[in-house]
């Protein structure tokens, strides 16, 4: 089985912790890029077991699953438990596109009181509680890399990026974390 083959995480062994912030690579998860028109949202929400959000900068979570709004017809759906998301979508008899991107993306968890300051080293968004509360999510930039940012909790941020961008993203977050603690 595939279990005997070594799965190589692009950020193997990376991590940082200081007084202000902790950075760690997130565990592998399954992910799809889900594209669908408005008329398919209800059926897909039912099939996935999570209500696909319809407003910018919002997410919806249920259990291990989270759907992040990326555009009027686009969501990033993550299953931290590794569930079969494309298989779940197939139950919905509507028009959509689900493409497996479990390995295209990887994620970094940024947590602690200095997390927002760390992210703001390279992310131009307003990450204040009023504008980007827990549960908010957005596709944005971190320095020169595109990321999807999801505020999973008050002080827990989930940074998704493409696999080959992850060493850059991690290193920039390390630089931001050092400054957040300075």
């Amino acid at each position, binding site marked *: *089985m*595939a*279990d*005997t*083959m*070594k*799965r*190589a*995480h*692009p950020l193997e062994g990376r991590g940082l912790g200081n007084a202000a912030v902790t950075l760690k690579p997130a565990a*592998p998860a399954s992910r799809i*890029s889900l*594209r669908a028109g408005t008329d398919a949202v209800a059926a897909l929400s039912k099939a996935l077991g999570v209500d696909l959000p319809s407003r910018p900068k919002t997410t919806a979570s249920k259990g291990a699953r989270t759907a992040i709004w990326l555009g009027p*017809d686009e969501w990033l759906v993550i299953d931290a438990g590794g569930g079969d998301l494309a298989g779940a979508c197939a139950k919905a008899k509507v*028009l959509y*596109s*689900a*493409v*497996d*991107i*479990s*390995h*295209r*993306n990887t994620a970094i968890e940024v947590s602690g009181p200095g997390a927002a*300051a760390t992210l*703001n*080293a*390279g*992310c*131009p*968004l*307003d990450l*204040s509680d009023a*504008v980007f509360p827990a549960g908010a999510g957005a596709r944005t930039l971190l*320095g*020169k*890399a595109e990321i999807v940012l999801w505020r999973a909790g008050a002080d827990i941020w989930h940074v998704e990026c*493409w*696999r*080959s*961008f992850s*060493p*850059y993203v991690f*290193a*920039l977050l390390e*630089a*931001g974390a*050092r*400054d957040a*603690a*300075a």
Partner: protein
Amino acid sequence: MTQPFRISGAGRLSPARTARFTFDGASYQGLEGDTLASALLANGVHLTGRSYKYHRPRGILSAGSEEPNALVSIERDATRRAPNVRATVQELYDGLVAGSQNRWPSLKWDIGEVNNLGSPFFSAGFYYKTFMWPKAAWTKLYEPFIRNAAGLGVAPDQPDPDHYASRHAHCDVLVIGAGAAGLVAALSAAKAGASVVICDEQAEAGGALRHESGARIGGRDGWAWAQDTAAELAAMDNVRVLTRTTAFGYHAQNFVALAERVTDHLAAPGHTMPRERLWQVRARRVVIAAGAIERHMVFADNDRPGIMLASAARIYLNHYGVAVGRKIGVYTASDSAYGAAIDLHKAGVAIAAIVDTRDDPSGPLVEEAKALGIKVLAGHGVTRVGGRLRVSSMSVRPNGGGTPRHVAIDALITSAGWTPSVHMFSQSRGKVRWDEATKRFLPGTYAQDCACVGACNGTDDLADAVSEAIAAGAKAAKEAGAKGRGAAKISVDASESWTGGMLGSAEGAGPGSTVKAFIDFQNDVTAKDIRQAVHEGMHSIEHVKRFTTNGMATDQGKLSNLHGLAIAAEVLDRPIPQVGLTTFRQPFTPVTFGTIVNHGRGGLFDVTRRTPIHDWAAENGAEFEDVGNWKRAWYFPRAGEDMHAAVNRECRTVRDVAGIFDASTLGKIEVVGPDAAAFLNLIYTNPFLKLGVGRLRYGVMCREDGFIYDDGVVGRIAEDRFHVTTTTGGAPRVLNHMEDYLQTEFPHMKVWLTSTSEQWAVIAVQGPKAREIIAPLVEGVDLDNESFPHMSVRECTVCGGIPARLFRMSFTGEAGYEINVPADYGRAVWEAVWALGEPMGMCAYGTETMHVLRAEKGYIIVGQDTDGTVTPHDAGLSWAVGKNKTDFVGMRGLMRPDLVAEGRKQLVGLKTRDGRTVLEEGAQIVADPKARVPMPMIGHVTSSYWSDNCGGPIALALVKDGQKRMGETLYVPMPDGVIEVEVTGMVFFDDKGERING
């Protein structure tokens, strides 16, 4: 006493807290809280630098960031040398090492001062007039001269060991400047519930309260109130107070850049601290409280060390407890200098006289000065000064002439009034207006959501400025959406009020005079230079500025602007507003490259992308090449092999046995939806409607103009799902191109595009033994030629259950496979293939071998063999253009007359006649090597390699009418001789194409 000019009991510094420093090698002592300038003055040192052009001795003019003269270099260690640091801004720390600039061999005796004697020669427009001809003198004489003379200070020659940080921030209200008006505006906005950022370039808040001893706010001394208010603000959750932070760039939509100096004032900065931090602030509203800058008087030799701004002398006294001299002259056109004179007098410093150009000055400060017995010479001017390295006397005479009297002095403080600092307002694209009553430019028409308050808005009275700031802070908070109900209540108990001021040259420096009366100290521009510029035809202030360099460089018009403008207006006999105002450019004060670059250096300069198999390649000795942001394995040299030997071996091995190649960087796009086939049929020149599930097709993509944009292999995974591959470099633009057409031209199509470039690691196994090597690893696919022929694709598993997309395809001309597996499994699957293939003689090969092998087969590389002017027909790909298609992107473009005309450059093969010489890529091709230079060029080499498999050099070239020239001899003229080449077809190896189906 080591600080002879420090006055006991004056100033706000603690005498017990001393700090040692050196200047030009001499040791001095100052106090903590000093600037380098105040510490030097405490030791009686005025001479701090040499001017840029004339090398005139210069002293400390100001006490702020407008300082044009006292530019020094600060050296922390061998790698930390900062040139052009303003001594008035640099805070003193124990052990500071500073040096003067632009002098040799010493500050007091500088050989460059000869320029001063030759100054008629170096006058305005000198560069434009002198370095004209002869042309030959440019490289030998003029350019070396200019390069040697250009620049001030010595740039560091080693990498900067410090690090710099960056922070994006958002707020309801950004307040620029933490003087009285700024503090009040911030407090007002914060109490109304707004999130506030307030910044100030100084180490402490307070602004002009630093020197205005007459101000009392909230029942306290003005300075004490400012410190209390700053502390109150800093303690509020919704306020961030940034001192030592300069707002230097005001961009569109209230995006303001701030530079925070974090460690420059510390004796031993912690290693984790950034030296500086760039703040990129996006504010809903901005309040500009930038204050005003005092102007100097323009008179003969007004640049002598010891001559400085009156407000600066007052700051040195009231804040730093330093007297700038023992017997001080005052030359003014404004009341504010009286305040300085009074404070100095009260501190026991002799005031030789106040020389006032006004005939009848009046006002409370004037009265007070007279009451204190200070001599006031109204209606007089200073026409000359004595002393070269330090002012020693002034010649005073009544306006319009009369007998001059000589007064001995050791410092001369001047004021021509105050210029509201409209820099940030002007940067925001706001339009200034001329206020005739007060003769100054003030904020006029706003372009952004900001408000100016206090001195920068022309609000002179402190009580008025405070009320204005309270209102502006509350309004900004409200407009930003703050819902708080709090309000700021601040009482102003006492303030100073000033009138007066003048623009342009003073007594004795007017039209016709030849004296050096400086307007712009930093650029050595005198009143005479401005007049000369106008006389020589520069009638626009923008031309005057460039001709004279007035207000250029770091000054940006802080001190020089209005004087220059007034003199030009006088000569032109036009009102000042008609002469115009030059643009105030960013940055407000110089910003280090480190701050602008901040984290973006070294590994963070740009993204370096590596494939999942990268580390294996590195461990196995690969050399890498950069392809876009990717690192790709270039070739795998073995012991003793150079690149040529390694590539030859790899090329032979692939054709003899097999090779394994990391193709993970290929762009991949998943095209999904019921209209996917119809969409691809429009995007590619090839037909796609009938491509069967499980089949692959090579596709060519054009732009609307008919030129090749990209190519790649497209696989049909299901009726409504395609796996599209693109070139490595083309991945992002192809996705954009497709998305663009989908959204604008074909919005009716039900298709979605998703980049999967990084989802899949791609392991190419190519060569006669490829099938045998991979067969044991592939599950559920019959690999024989009938079941899985060339150009097929299957979804399957490999290596015990790893999901895969297996492509049977070739970019080498050999039978080959590309195994796509989820990226995290890339290396494991690669190693499994390696374990089976290596014992059979398979090698790993890199991009160079890939290039050679594909060239042997005449496969093009878009961007190398094409250049944006090549059609599929030019590239010999007519077969890939669907003849029966009714539409595709580029179809109309391909029908343009020029694209179907004779004489187009077409892709062909070239072989060198000598069978040895490898052509240079990019080399030009001619039909007649004896033609006169410049020869008519008919094409160029696009790809060229040594091919061991073909036993000689091979090349591809774009040649005019190339396809009609088969067999012709053409010529490639090179510096060391002409190379004869034969035009051939593009396929050099296995021209029947049998091996691919092997």
